[in-house]
């Protein structure tokens, strides 16, 4: 399968296989007018299988959201067909309005205008807790 390389835009590589649609939804890529290619289950020496997303336009990506979904993703910025910058991601300390607290006793369940903020409490096991009620994000 051949996908054209892009001239100016962004490549999200090393996405864990199966997570590309989540990335697509979380970054609201459906709202872009440019071409977006989602390539699933690509063979990878390092990962076995991986997903790749190519975006044929430069735009500001929320790296915190991306880092939360999959900190192993590599973000490459392409200009005139050349990779000008590569960014490795890390788990963000907090995420806001990416997840929703499922605890029915949490204040966010009734005050829907509150930002849904979660704090990283265990880096090793990727555990985030709601800043209000301390409930763990149910994966």
């Amino acid at each position, binding site marked *: 399968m051949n996908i054209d390389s892009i001239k100016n835009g962004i490549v999200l590589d090393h996405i864990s296989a199966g997570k590309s649609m989540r990335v697509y939804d979380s970054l609201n890529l459906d709202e872009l007018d440019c071409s977006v290619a989602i390539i699933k289950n690509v063979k990878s020496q390092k990962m076995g299988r991986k997903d790749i997303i190519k975006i044929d336009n430069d735009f500001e990506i929320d790296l915190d959201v991306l880092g939360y979904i999959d900190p192993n993703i590599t973000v490459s910025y392409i200009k005139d067909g050349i990779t000008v910058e590569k960014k490795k991601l890390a788990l963000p300390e907090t995420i806001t309005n990416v997840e929703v607290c499922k*605890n029915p*006793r*949490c*204040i*966010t*369940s*009734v*005050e829907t*205008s*509150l930002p849904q903020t979660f704090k990283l409490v265990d880096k090793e096991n990727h555990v985030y807790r*709601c*800043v*209000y*009620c*301390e409930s*763990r994000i149910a994966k």
Partner: protein
Amino acid sequence: MKNLIDPMDLSVKEIDNLLNLADKITANPSAYEDVCNHKTLATLFFEPSTRTRLSFEAAMLELGGNVLGFSSANSSSAAKGESISDTIQTVSCYSHIIAMRHPKEGAPLAGATRASVPIINAGDGGHNHPTQTLTDLLTIRREKGRLDNLTIGLCGDLKFGRTVHSLMKAMSRYKNIRFICVSPEELRIPEYLKRDVVEKYNIEFIEVEKMEDVIDELDVIYMTRVQKERFFNEADYIRLKDSYILDLDKLKTAKKDLSILHPLPRVNEIAVEVDDDPRACYFRQVKNGKYVRMALIMTMLGLHK
């Protein structure tokens, strides 16, 4: 200290300072009777409470301050659908400090983000109750003369009891603390607490089903209520219910200087006959709650240097 939302917001040093101030106030209350003149405490209680609200109000009045507020959501604009942040911003215009209780977890934190005056969490659902923790710490320190080198029994509903969780977190920062948790299997402390407190601080920790097996080892026993509806089946409730009632018979093997604490209200988990035993501290604990809240209000208003 801008707000007090979680008992762990306080460092050990800040806790020591508060307890020391509470001791000073207790020793000489008249020296503090005008400290909060022209200051107003708002008590915003979105759910009913006897002890905590009255304790806050008594604390402020004894410091010479004023009190306003409401004692249920129905008597506030929350009943009309007003958001917490709007209520807090409004009340910030009328008061210098706010004590807030709410049935939803995290509500005081949500309020604190918009408040222009200090907020004290006076209990948010089953989550945190930091002034109860301060009350418990003051009581243990007064009764035992220390907060380290203690074997503490926690008895009853250890799964849902917020006061137990907060006390365990707070006590875990002191040296040589040993916890003995007495509860039915269904009501044992949550896994996260074992991981984040017991294992993290390498604390000696035992779980047992019957109080009788361990009562002779305890320096402090912290009683909580076991509710029938928490059990999965009637047979277990009947088998275990008497193990979580403290009476004079069970106290026969306890240490002579055991301290019996309870956050109250109690139902039947401590027999009334125990009230006259000198080891019963729970009504002294209530009084300590007022003094520690006096210390907290003064500190948060910057009236104690």
